[in-house]
């Protein structure tokens, strides 16, 4: 499989020398390595791993506190969520989560953390300052994707076996609508204007775009890649550019990230990345997109403007989640 080849470091280095070293992106990316129980820390300017630290067991979902002080990681096999200092990477505290937490999202208020508990069909809401469980919201079988509306009023949770996107009112924490999507929905993502909600169906092989106002499916996006069998096209991660023009969809074992025009819903491009690409994160300036490639133990760096993979960075085994610091 023609993955980013051995020659890439040299090419990337040349690219970096010509333009990248002068870029504005001195952020830090944090990658959870599911199999290694570790966190790889990447300098987004140098595009290299600057530190690897051991954290809890089976780290998966990762978010950053809104002020950038903490990184918050689902340590699934410890059945809790751990908080680390983003600068020193020292352990701060444990948050209660219920068993086997996988993905999480933070409310714009910076306090309320919403955690998907796959084993209990619940979304747990935790105050990250007081470390107290505020409430538990019953959802479908195997809750996974967590999409927070930009205004913080609605949380969308996807349940993998129920095949729904559950719309939850964040004021009373009640489900107010449920939209059926294709099999095994993994990720839910709003655009910043809150006019579209994108939901990826891993086994169904599609991405549904839902109008949040009436919860009707606007369209379903299909993917076709010559030479890649249909079953290998498994959409998971979704990121939408801040201007709302492009959506990047990670296609799992198809080893590609699709770029979709959000007004025509046409797939513009398939970017070849590492193997089994799942989660992604933009740098705050929107210039780079980092992807975790579970089966090839690396992170691909996509240049957003040119829609090209510019580098592959070796991390730990089975990289799962990624987040980039706001500063």
């Amino acid at each position, binding site marked *: 499989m023609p993955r980013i080849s051995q020659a890439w470091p040299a090419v990337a280095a040349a690219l970096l020398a010509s*333009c*990248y070293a*002068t*870029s*504005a992106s001195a952020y830090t990316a944090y990658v959870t390595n599911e199999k290694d129980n570790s966190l790889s820390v990447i300098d987004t300017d140098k595009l290299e791993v600057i530190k690897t630290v051991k954290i809890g067991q089976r780290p998966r979902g990762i978010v950053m506190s809104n002020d950038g002080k903490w990184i918050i990681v689902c340590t699934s096999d410890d059945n809790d969520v751990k908080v680390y200092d983003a600068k020193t990477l020292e352990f701060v505290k444990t948050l209660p989560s219920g*068993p*086997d937490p996988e993905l999480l999202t933070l409310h714009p208020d910076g306090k309320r953390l919403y955690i998907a508990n*796959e*084993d209990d*069909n619940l979304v747990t809401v935790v105050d990250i300052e007081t470390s107290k469980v505020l409430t538990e919201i*019953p959802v*479908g*079988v*195997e809750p996974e994707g967590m999409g927070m*509306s*930009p*205004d*913080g*009023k*609605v949380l969308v949770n996807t*349940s*993998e*076996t*129920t*095949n*729904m996107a*559950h*719309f939850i*009112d964040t004021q009373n924490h009640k*489900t*107010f*609508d*449920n939209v*059926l999507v294709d*099999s*095994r929905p993994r990720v839910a993502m709003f655009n*910043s*204007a*809150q*006019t579209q909600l994108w939901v990826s169906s891993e*086994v*169904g*092989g599609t991405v549904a775009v839902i109008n*949040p*106002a*009436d919860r009707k499916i606007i369209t379903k996006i299909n993917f076709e890649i010559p030479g890649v*069998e249909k*079953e290998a096209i*498994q959409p998971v991660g979704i990121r939408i550019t*801040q201007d709302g023009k492009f959506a990047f969809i990670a296609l799992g074992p198809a080893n590609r990230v699709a770029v979709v025009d959000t007004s025509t819903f046409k797939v513009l491009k398939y970017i070849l990345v590492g193997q089994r690409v799942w989660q992604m994160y933009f740098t*705050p*300036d929107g*210039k780079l997109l980092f992807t975790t490639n579970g089966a090839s133990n690396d992170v691909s760096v996509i*240049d957003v*403007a*040119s829609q090209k993979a510019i580098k592959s960075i070796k991390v730990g085994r089975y990289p799962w989640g990624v987040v980039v610091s706001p*500063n």
Partner: protein
Amino acid sequence: MVFPSTRPTERSRISARITGWQTTCAALLLALAFARPAAAEEASPKPAPIPIPSTQPASVNVQILYVKENVSKELPLSLLDQPNPDDGIAGAKLGIADNNTTGRFLNQTFKMDVLEGDIDELIKGATEKLASGDNFIIADVAPDSLLKLADALKDKPAQIFNVGNPDDSVREENCRPNVMHTAPTRTMLADALAQYLVWKKWPNWLLVVGPSPKDQLLADAYRRAAKKFGAKIVEERQFKIDTGNRRADGGFEQIQQQIPQFMQGAKDHDIVLVVDEDQVFADYFPYRTWVPRPIAGSAGLVASSWHPALELWGGTQFQNRFKKLTGRIMRPIDYDAWVATRAIGEATSRKQTSDFKTLRDFMHSPNFDVAAFKGVATSFRSWNGQLREPLIVSTPKQLVSVSPQPGFLHQFSVLDTLGLDKPETKCKAYTQ
């Protein structure tokens, strides 16, 4: 690429971002002012408000019947393999629980009745239950009994799911249009294992075949698989030793002498395939052969629809839910029954009705699939109603691989490289 030519200072970068955010806020507020003038006074940005409705969908109730035939057969060798009274039933129960969790959001409920008895009792009971709305019947019965049940219900609104037997004939020459099958067939299981052995480049097999008629059918499936995938059965031996009671104080002293003796003088082979569907002697073979060779088939490396240690594709949560519900590990028949129950639930949530014909037709249509912890969608073959699914190749404690193997191709679905394919089918009743 558009990158600034000089690197801004930390401060200027932060202020640039703040300015960007303020611009976004202003734009959002502006948009809001047009969309909802009444809310314009609120300070926080509120892009495209999401209204919250209060309607609920109409209620739907689906009833399922599980029938289990009482059979007396020799107990498997290992204490670990002894049957549980709720084998299969427990999987369907988990399926009902999962369907109800989903149903909660759609105002749908699922109920299950369970009947156990001989086939005549089951047919009588199923006919009665059908009259009170149990249109979907999950059947753990012998092949002959399955045909009897199907024929007894043939003009009634009933859809039967076979979870109880791997018999190819009930999917082929004896297929019935009102039966779908979630249990894998012997040919599928043999193909799954064969593909792995061929991928491993272990193509020379010694076949040891047990005495039961089922073993003869399974041996046929291996012979067919060898031919299909280019392996060679170098020799066949019939295992006719009376195994006696599975348990006796001692016993191993004699087995340790008998098995090597039985295996003496065989033609050169890569692997021994032991064919023993009821698992009454296959487990005597590992580590007792004359020459040191691995064992596969009914002991050692085995193909199945499910493995109690499978954790791929979200399987961990599935295993945990099962264990919480039943206190034991999940067996293949539990999985097969869960898939049948989930298929019914999936059809109901997609069609939002309990109308039998709508649900039945949808499950038979090429548009139907169900996610069943196999990484890819499972679906039903249009020519005989057999579940199309990846199969697990494993040792007793751990998964070794998942078939189809890389390199085995198919013009429509690689999953159809397992078992009898459309051009080979002898099922006529199904498509009529």
